[in-house]
């Protein structure tokens, strides 16, 4: 596939923004200023960005508890997200949702989800709506190797197949469902795509640590679904660089595993090497983006710290649209 300079710069910026956002959270959580559960997406950036770079705002995605990457890739405001994670009034969800419940319907991000497997049926609903709209739009469920074992995911895949709606099931196999390996928990010999095929849909497989492979493989899938062929699935082989949640001691990791993953399976490193070796972008250009992104994250954290707490008087607001 051919990418122009702006596309490459944009893709790198979005992946770098996710990485910097997550790494900064990893550090800030240790200060005790951020409470609750935070599940970091670092390591999987090529999946969210490689896919969302091909979507419009009218294509809807549903995300997971590990949702920051999907939010940023789909266009959620980074500062609003940071404020949300800090539990502040200016947060994208007014401090009511927190890390696991970030949504922005205006950019087609229907919500992160604290329930593993909660999103897949909702993507089918988005696909039902998309088909009625008749403009080739799609509904996408991001799921992990954990969610691939939930009944909701099975039901959603079957419903999508029998109703022939433009739903896309993206399985990000980072090889750990919480603290259990896919070699144990995914009964189909750690192969998730074959399950989707078993439900009667076409499935693709790609290297989820490679932006270009993810992008080009998903492009084929997207063309197939947009053309009205019904649902499809893709399994991305990817890695998470942190624990299941922040604070996870990760005793399940092999010796030197994280160092090896950072060395061999870092999508940002791979992207940088590929585009500089091909002389498509210079190291200086990428370094400049790194600096800009770090500055943005610095600002986001500073603004989140300075923002007001939500007003407790509104604790029970927005439960309903219409009250009686």
């Amino acid at each position, binding site marked *: 596939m051919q990418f122009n300079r702006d596309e490459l710069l944009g893709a790198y910026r979005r992946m770098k923004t996710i990485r910097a956002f997550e790494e900064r959270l990893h550090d800030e959580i240790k200060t005790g200023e951020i409470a609750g559960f935070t599940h970091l997406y670092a390591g999987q950036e090529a999946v969210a960005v490689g896919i969302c770079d091909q979507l419009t705002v009218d294509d*809807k995605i*549903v995300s997971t508890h590990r949702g920051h990457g999907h939010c940023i890739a789909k266009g959620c405001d980074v500062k609003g997200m940071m404020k949300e994670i800090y539990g502040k009034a200016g*947060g*994208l*969800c*007014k*401090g*009511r*949702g927190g890390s696991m*419940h970030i*949504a*922005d*319907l205006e950019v087609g991000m*229907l*919500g992160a*989800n*604290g*329930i593993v497997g*909660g999103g*897949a*049926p*909702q*993507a*089918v*609903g*988005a*696909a*039902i*709506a*998309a*088909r*009625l709209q008749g403009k080739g739009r799609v*509904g996408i469920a991001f799921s992990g190797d954990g969610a691939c074992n939930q*009944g*909701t995911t099975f*039901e*959603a895949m*079957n*419903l999508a197949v*029998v*109703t022939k709606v433009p739903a896309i099931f993206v399985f990000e196999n980072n090889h750990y469902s919480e603290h259990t390996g896919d070699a144990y928990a995914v009964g189909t010999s750690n192969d998730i795509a074959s399950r989707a095929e078993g439900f009667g849909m076409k499935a693709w497989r790609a290297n989820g640590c490679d932006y270009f492979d993810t992008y080009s493989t998903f492009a084929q899938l997207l063309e197939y679904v947009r053309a009205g062929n019904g649902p499809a699935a893709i399994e991305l082989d990817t890695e998470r660089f942190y624990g299941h949640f922040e604070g996870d001691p990760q005793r399940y990791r092999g010796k030197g595993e994280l160092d090896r993953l950072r060395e061999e399976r870092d999508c940002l490193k791979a992207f940088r090497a590929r585009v500089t070796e091909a002389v498509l972008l210079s190291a200086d250009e990428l370094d400049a983006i790194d600096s800009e992104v770090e500055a943005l994250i610095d600002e986001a954290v500073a603004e989140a710290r300075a923002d007001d707490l939500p007003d407790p008087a509104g604790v*029970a*607001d*927005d*439960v*309903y*649209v*219409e*009250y*009686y």
Partner: protein
Amino acid sequence: MAVMNIREAIVSTLHAEMERDEDIIVLGEDVVGGNGTAGGPEAIGGIWGTSPGLWEKFGPERVIDTPISESAIIGAAAGAALSGKRPVAELMFADFVGVSLDQIWNQMAKFRYMFGGKTKCPAVVRLVYGAGMQTAAQHSQSVYAMLTSMPGLKVVLPTTPADAKGLLTEALRGDDPVMFFEHKTLYGVKGEVPDGDFRQRFGEARVVREGGDVTVVACGRMVSFSEKAADKLGADGIGMDLLDLRTTSPLDEDAILESVEQTGRLVVVDESPPRCSLAADIAAMVSERAFTSLKAPPAMVTAPHSPIPFARNLERAWVPSPQKIEDAVRRVLAFR
């Protein structure tokens, strides 16, 4: 005014509203029926006969037969609602809430709040509920109290054809998730239904009787059972204020409190076991807010703390009866 039964009121309202608003879609098991069979689509038109003709008129993209996958049905409704549609999802039996609860409780009920009030989820879930047809422990329950306890949901229980039309129309035009309970023994209840555009506001109890001696609060099938009790009590000169709640969320607390302030005596009738029930909820609310008006402890007429049995006589023993309602009224009136 046309005379029709509750089933007909629901069918005609669905037809009228789907014609009026192209964003309304219907999905559920056998809402069409017959897909993939020799008989072909519309072989059934809804197991309860509440969706005939929809598929033929509005087509397979708006009237969607689903596999037996309740989580996917409700979840797809939630996702479609977030995407600008107004889905009507049918749960063939309210008991199947158990299969799909996460999508109701953790998902559609909470979207608006969790997402900072910037979204809405205008989904209607139709739930067929209630005992009385010997459908036993897993197909007879009245699970409205459980859903009433969940912030973000509205809970609706029509008992007349007019209310079926008015409340369903209100549900379909509102922007919140609505749990629309249809009692399986009430589908054939006939009555006058206003023509044309007719909406019944939520949170307004229907005053069925005004008698002044005792306040009886009921919903669903228990309303007609309370009327039977009222007829017998009336023969003895005892007058009943009977309120049909219409909706349990929102709850018309004012109507209940105003009546109790006049009568000083409360009986709550609830077709479900007593613990954490609607009866307990209303009795507690009245005890807290109208304590000085009460002349007797509130009485709860409920089913026993047991699953619903199959055998005809056992099921009848389980369901609160007009006799039990009558006895409870006499008991609170005799309290000194």
